C-alpha cells in the first residue's frame, strides 16, 4: 500500500468520486465530512445527469453537448475542460449504471433520457426525480467497500478549518475540527482536495443544504488561494417558498413538458384551473418559440423576474408563476417525476397532479469558486496525468465539484453539475497521485512544529471565538446579511445598490466582532463553528459583490440592465461569425450588414474584448483585490447567445 496519503474534504459526488478513483489506484485516503457522507448536498440534485448517448437517435453527440455547455455559460468557461468533460459524459453515465444507479429505462431496457434546459436534445439520464441521491448512494457504497478494505478512513462529524502550509506555501495537510469533542488537530496529507460544494448560505434561504456555507474554499482564499468568477451565482427559475429553505422544483418538471404561465390579466383572483387557455400567458413559449420552457436558467429566471416585477403579472401579485403539469396522467408523472411532486405536496398541501404549482426563482448554484488549474493537450483536451489539473493556486491544495470555478462559465446548464462533479473527481485522480508520488518531501518528513504551530493558531482562534461576549446573535446576524445579499446581489444588478451593499457588508463585519457566542459548552457545540463560518461568509459576500460591482456588462447570470447590449430581435449569431471572419481578413464589408446589426456586433466585439475574462479575487488587506485572466476560447468562437 502507498504510504503517502491524500485528504479529501467533503463527501458529495466530487469528493466521493475522487476518493473512489484514488483508492482504486492504491492511494490511502482520509475522507473528512461534516455529516455522514450519505447525507451530503448532492442528494438534492433531482433532474438528472447529462451525457450525449444519443439513445433517441436525434443525432446528438459530445461535440453538440460541448457547444451547448459553452454557449449556456456565455463563453466564460475554459473550453478544453468543457470539451473533455462532455467527451467523457457517456462513459460516466455507463459507469454509474454499472455501479448500481437505478436509472429509468426505455421499453427495450436501455437508459432513458429526457430533455433539460439549454439544449434541444434528450441528453439527461435520470433516476426518477432523485438522480443526485441515487448517484451519491452508488459512490457512497463504493467508498464504504474501500473503507472495509482499509484504503479509506472516514472522519465524519469533522470540519476543515484551513490548510497547513510550509514556508514555500505548499499544502502539507489540513486542520480538522472534531464537531463532537471540539478537538482541533492537524491531519497530514501530501495533497488536500476541497470538494466542499457551493456557498448558497451566503444568501440564507436557498435551494442549498445547511452545510453549503462555502467556508472551506473561503478559508483557502484567506490563505492566499485565488477565487474565480465569484459574481456568477445561478438563480434557479423554479423553487418552492419555505421559511427554513427554498426547496427546488426540478427543471425536469419542464423537461417532461411542464408549462410556465401567468394569468394575462394582472391580479386575476380566479383559481388557476378556472382560467381558460386563451387567458393564460405562456410567456416562455411565446418569447422563445425554439427552446420554450427549456431556456437556460439565467434566461428563465430573468423572464420570471420581468413578468412579475416589470409586467406585474405575478400570481396573486407576488413574485410567483405557475408551473403546470396537470395535462399529464398521474401514472406518467409518478414514474418520471415522483419524488419531487411528492415533496411539493408535502410542503404546500397542494397536489401538483391536479393543480398547477406555484414556483419562484431562488439562489441555487455558484458557477464561481476557488480557482483551479489544468493542462491541455495539443488537440484541445485535458492531459489526465497532469498534477496541475484541479490544483488551486496553493501547491498541493486541490478543488473539485461546485467548489471550483471552471466548467460552467457565466451560467450552468441543468444536469451538468452532477456531471462536472463526478468528472472532476475521476479526472483529477491520476494527476493528484502523480503529484503526491513526486513531492520532494513527504509530509511524514516535515518537522512536527509546522503542524503544531498551525494547530495552535486555530485552537487560539476558537478559544477567542468562544470568549466572544458581545450583543449580536450570530444566527440573527446571518439572516440580516443574507437579506442584504438577496435584495441587492441577485437577478438584476445595479451599481449603486452593489456599492451600498459593499458598505453594508463592512458593517456586518464590524458587527461580527460584537457577536455573543451563545453556547460555550465543549461537547457537540456548533456555535463556535458557525461564528467562524459566518466570518468566512462575510468575506465571500465581498468577493461576490465586488466582482459584480466591477463587472460592467451583462453576461450569463450576471445581468446589469445598464450594460445590456440590446441584441436586435432579428439578429442571427452566425452573422457575427461572418463579421469576425471579415475583421480577421482585414476588410469588413459594412454595407453587407443591416446597420442595426452592424452596430450591435461592434458593441458586442468591444464588450467581449474587455469582459470575456475570468474574474480573479485575491485576498489583500482584508478585502478582495479583483483582477482578470484570459479564458481559453480556442475551440468554439464566442458569439452572441440566442434561444428564440
Amino acid at each position: 500500500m502507498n504510504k503517502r496519503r491524500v485528504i479529501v474534504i467533503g463527501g458529495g459526488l466530487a469528493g466521493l468520486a475522487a476518493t473512489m478513483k484514488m483508492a482504486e489506484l492504491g492511494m490511502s485516503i482520509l475522507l473528512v465530512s461534516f455529516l455522514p457522507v450519505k447525507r451530503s448536498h448532492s442528494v438534492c440534485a433531482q433532474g438528472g445527469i447529462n451525457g450525449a448517448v444519443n439513445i433517441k437517435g436525434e443525432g446528438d453527440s459530445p461535440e453538440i453537448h460541448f457547444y451547448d455547455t459553452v454557449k449556456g455559460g456565455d463563453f466564460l468557461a475554459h473550453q478544453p475542460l468543457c470539451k473533455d468533460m462532455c467527451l467523457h459524459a457517456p462513459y460516466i453515465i455507463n459507469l454509474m449504471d454499472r455501479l448500481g444507479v437505478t436509472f429509468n429505462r426505455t421499453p427495450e431496457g436501455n437508459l432513458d433520457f429526457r430533455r433539460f434546459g439549454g439544449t434541444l436534445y434528450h441528453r439527461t439520464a435520470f433516476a426518477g426525480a432523485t438522480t443526485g441521491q441515487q448517484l451519491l448512494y452508488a459512490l457512497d457504497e463504493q467508498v464504504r467497500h474501500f473503507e472495509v478494505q482499509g484504503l479509506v478512513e472516514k472522519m465524519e462529524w469533522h470540519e476543515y478549518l484551513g490548510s497547513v502550509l510550509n514556508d514555500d506555501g505548499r499544502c502539507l495537510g489540513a486542520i480538522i475540527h472534531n464537531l463532537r469533542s471540539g478537538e482541533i488537530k492537524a491531519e497530514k496529507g501530501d495533497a488536500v482536495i476541497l470538494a466542499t460544494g457551493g456557498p448558497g448560505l451566503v444568501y440564507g434561504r436557498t435551494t442549498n443544504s445547511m452545510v453549503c456555507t462555502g467556508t472551506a474554499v473561503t478559508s483557502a482564499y484567506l490563505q492566499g488561494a485565488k477565487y474565480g468568477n465569484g459574481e456568477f451565482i445561478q438563480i434557479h427559475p423554479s423553487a418552492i417558498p419555505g421559511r427554513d429553505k427554498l426547496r427546488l422544483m426540478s427543471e425536469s418538471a419542464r423537461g417532461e413538458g411542464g408549462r410556465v404561465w401567468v394569468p394575462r390579466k394582472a391580479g386575476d383572483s380566479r383559481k388557476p384551473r378556472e382560467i381558460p387557455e386563451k387567458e393564460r400567458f405562456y410567456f416562455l413559449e411565446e418569447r422563445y418559440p425554439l427552446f420554450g420552457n427549456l431556456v437556460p436558467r439565467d434566461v428563465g429566471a430573468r423572464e420570471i423576474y420581468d413578468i412579475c416585477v416589470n409586467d406585474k403579472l405575478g400570481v396573486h401579485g407576488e413574485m410567483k408563476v405557475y408551473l403546470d403539469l396537470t395535462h399529464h396522467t398521474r401514472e406518467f408523472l409518478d414514474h418520471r417525476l415522483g419524488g419531487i411532486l411528492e415533496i411539493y405536496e408535502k410542503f404546500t398541501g397542494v397536489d401538483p397532479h391536479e393543480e398547477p404549482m406555484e414556483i419562484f426563482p431562488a439562489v441555487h448554484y455558484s458557477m464561481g469558486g476557488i480557482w483551479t488549474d489544468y493542462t491541455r493537450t495539443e488537440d484541445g483536451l485535458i492531459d489526465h496525468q497532469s498534477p496541475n489539473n484541479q490544483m488551486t493556486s496553493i501547491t498541493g491544495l486541490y478543488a473539485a465539484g461546485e467548489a471550483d470555478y471552471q466548467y460552467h462559465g457565466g451560467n450552468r446548464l441543468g444536469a451538468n453539475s452532477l456531471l462536472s462533479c463526478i468528472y472532476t473527481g475521476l479526472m483529477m485522480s491520476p494527476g493528484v497521485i502523480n503529484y503526491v508520488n513526486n513531492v520532494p518531501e513527504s509530509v511524514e518528513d516535515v518537522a512536527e512544529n509546522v503542524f503544531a504551530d498551525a494547530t495552535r493558531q486555530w485552537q487560539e482562534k476558537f478559544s477567542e471565538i468562544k470568549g466572544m461576549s458581545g450583543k449580536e446573535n450570530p444566527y440573527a446576524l446571518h439572516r440580516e446579511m443574507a437579506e442584504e445579499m438577496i435584495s441587492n446581489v441577485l437577478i438584476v444588478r445595479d451599481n449603486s445598490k452593489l456599492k451600498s451593499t459593499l458598505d453594508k457588508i463592512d458593517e456586518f463585519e464590524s458587527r461580527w466582532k460584537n457577536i455573543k457566542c451563545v453556547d460555550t459548552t465543549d461537547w457537540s457545540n456548533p456555535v463556535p463553528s458557525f461564528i467562524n463560518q459566518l466570518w468566512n461568509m462575510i468575506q465571500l459576500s465581498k468577493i461576490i459583490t465586488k466582482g459584480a460591482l466591477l463587472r460592467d456588462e451583462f453576461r450569463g447570470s450576471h445581468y446589469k440592465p445598464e450594460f445590456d447590449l440590446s441584441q436586435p430581435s432579428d439578429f442571427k449569431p452566425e452573422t457575427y461569425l461572418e463579421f469576425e471572419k471579415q475583421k480577421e481578413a482585414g476588410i469588413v464589408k459594412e454595407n453587407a450588414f443591416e446597420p442595426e446589426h452592424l452596430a450591435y456586433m461592434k458593441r458586442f466585439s468591444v464588450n467581449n474584448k474587455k469582459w470575456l475574462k475570468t474574474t480573479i479575487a485575491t485576498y489583500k488587506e482584508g478585502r478582495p483585490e479583483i483582477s482578470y485572466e484570459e479564458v481559453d476560447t480556442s475551440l468554439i468562437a464566442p458569439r452572441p447567445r440566442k434561444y428564440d
Partner: protein
Amino acid sequence: MPDTVTLKIKRQDSETSDSYWETFTIPYIPSSNVISCLMDIQANPVNAKGEEVTPVFWESNCLEEVCGACTMVINGKVHQSCSALVDQLEKPISLEPMSKFPVVRDLAVDRDRMFGALKKVQAWVTADGYHDLGPGERESTSHQEVAYKLSECMTCGCCVEACPQYSLSNNFLGAAAISQSRLFNMHPTAKNIADERLDTLMQKGGIADCGNAQNCVEACPKSIPLTESIAEMGRQVSGKFWRNIFQA
C-alpha cells in the same frame, strides 16, 4: 391564528448526562416547520421561563426529506423534522431524539450502527474498475421500478425506531439493511455475492430477529415496501438453508 407556538423539547447535554425537558414559546409564523422553529430558537435562545439557554442542537442538512439527517420523534411519532409542518401538528409540539440510538446531544443521535449494517450486508456492487467498460446490463422498466423504490432509502432510522425488535442492547440489522440486501441481490452483478449476504442474514441479528410487527413499513417516509423486502429475503434465506442441507 395563534400568536405563538410552544415546543417541549427533550434535551440532553452530552452522551452520558441525564435528559431534561425544556419548553420554548416562539412567535407563530405561517408555513413554519419544526426546523424553522428550531432555527428561530437559535436566533433567540430563550426558554419559556425567559432564561437564556444554549440553542437546541439537532442534525439536519437538505431540509427536503432526501438526506435523512433531521429524523426525530415529533409528538411521539418518528419523522423528518423538515417535513413536519407546524400547522399540521398538535400543540404544544413535543420533540425527542430517537430512542433506538445513543444520544449525542439534545435531538441528535448516533446512527453509526445503521451504516455498519450496510457494511455487514455488503450493500455495494463489486466493479472490475472505474475505467470505461461500456454500458451496464439492460434492464426492464418493471425491474427498475422495484429497484428504484428500494434505493430511495436514506438510512434515516424511522423503520428501526418504530421496530419493537430493534433495541440499544441487541444487534438486529433492522429493516433498512435487510431491504438493501434485497436491492443488491437483485442487481445483475451485485447478485454474484448474493449467498454471502444471505449468510449474514442467517446469523444472529439477522432476519430471524424480525418479529413481523410491520411497524417499519408504516414509519418509512419514502413508502419503501420494507415488509415485502423482509418477506423476499426470508424466502431467499430459506432457499439457501435447504440448499445448504442438500449440499451437505
